[in-house]
């Protein structure tokens, strides 16, 4: 009986410690800066620059498989296409047409010049065709993991 009490006490301590440990992992450290919420092209540029990337606004770009006109951003020198929609619903509707591997969008099939990476958040779809690790890192930092591509 006495042994059982000790076991329960020990178990309680372990749980309490692990709970504290979990809390300490999830809590934001004092003084840390929250990542900027990306809603559109302007906030994307701020977020990318905040990650240390160089960003220049380039030429307009249009794709037959997206209804929104796009803009090329030169991110660390690489072309990144940004398509901004009127609403998040409109963006989601078009993003849902992209196949998981990025090989087809609705009734269009694409042979890419390089590896395609599709990201989305709020009102924008971002397309990067390439494999530069520094570009992928800042895009993922600003937008989260890609939702389609290879």
């Amino acid at each position, binding site marked *: 009986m006495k042994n059982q009490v000790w076991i329960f006490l020990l178990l309680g301590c372990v749980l309490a410690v692990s709970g504290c440990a979990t809390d300490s992992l999830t809590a934001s450290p004092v003084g840390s800066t929250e990542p900027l919420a990306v809603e559109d092209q302007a906030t994307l540029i701020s977020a990318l620059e905040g990650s240390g990337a160089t960003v220049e606004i380039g*030429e307009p770009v249009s794709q037959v498989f997206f209804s929104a006109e796009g803009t090329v951003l030169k991110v660390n020198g690489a072309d990144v296409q940004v398509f901004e929609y009127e609403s998040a619903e409109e963006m989601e509707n078009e993003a849902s047409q992209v196949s998981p591997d990025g*090989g087809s969008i609705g009734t269009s*099939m694409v*042979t890419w*010049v390089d590896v395609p990476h599709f990201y989305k958040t709020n009102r924008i779809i971002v397309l990067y*065709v390439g494999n530069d690790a520094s570009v992928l890192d800042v895009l993922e930092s600003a937008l989260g993991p890609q939702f389609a591509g290879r």
Partner: protein
Amino acid sequence: LKANPYEENLVMRTQKARFVLVLAVIIMLAAFPFSAGADHAWGNYHWARTSNPATITVIDSMTTDWDDNLDTAISDWSKSSVLDIVEEAGASDANTRSRCRAVKGKVRSCNYTYGNNGWLGLAQIWVRGSHITQGTAKMNDTYFSSPAYDETARQHVVCQEIGHDWGLGHQDESGADLNTCMDYADALDNPSPNAHDYAQLETIYSHLDNSTTIGAAPAGFENANVHAQENWGTKVHEAANGRSAIFERDFGNGFKIFTFVVWAE
């Protein structure tokens, strides 16, 4: 040495188990034979047609430096037992190639400097339900003008883009090189379809439809005068009370105009 009866029994049981296993494998192979079967259809999109082989026309809106590539791709795809691909000369001025306007019942193939948009080739289909009604295949000269893309790469891409227009998807999405122009590999080193592609086409086109989306509509169909009753065709149904009827005018190849009429008293 005299064998142990227990060991003898064990050996016999093991042999019997092996025999059953081999038999099971033989039955499995007979039921599911290895074949050129494939599963890379693009959804269930296909051209509606009433007989096989179906003849699909590709309009050549490409500059002369691409003509050989298109000719070869058309010749390759025509080896299919269910499709016969024919070429039709089309306009190849810059405006036509830039727009690459789709034509009902046909596929148009174009090349142009479509810009730094990330794609080398782009196939598009227009569909009604699961039936393809028209298609385009575009090759992007903005990239192909680079010496990085050799003749094999050009052939790979034109073969793939018009291949999509028959309702084929990529053979595999892993990026593996599968020795077909319909793979999704980074290397563009396969200028032709392979047996799996032809097998997939046979699967896609194994059934027949009641109508066709291939080619232009029959003469007189699009603007048929159906104002007068004599142009309604044959009466195929009449209500029991004689108040209404359905007439059918058949233009062939599944092109029909139905007229539903309710008679005035």
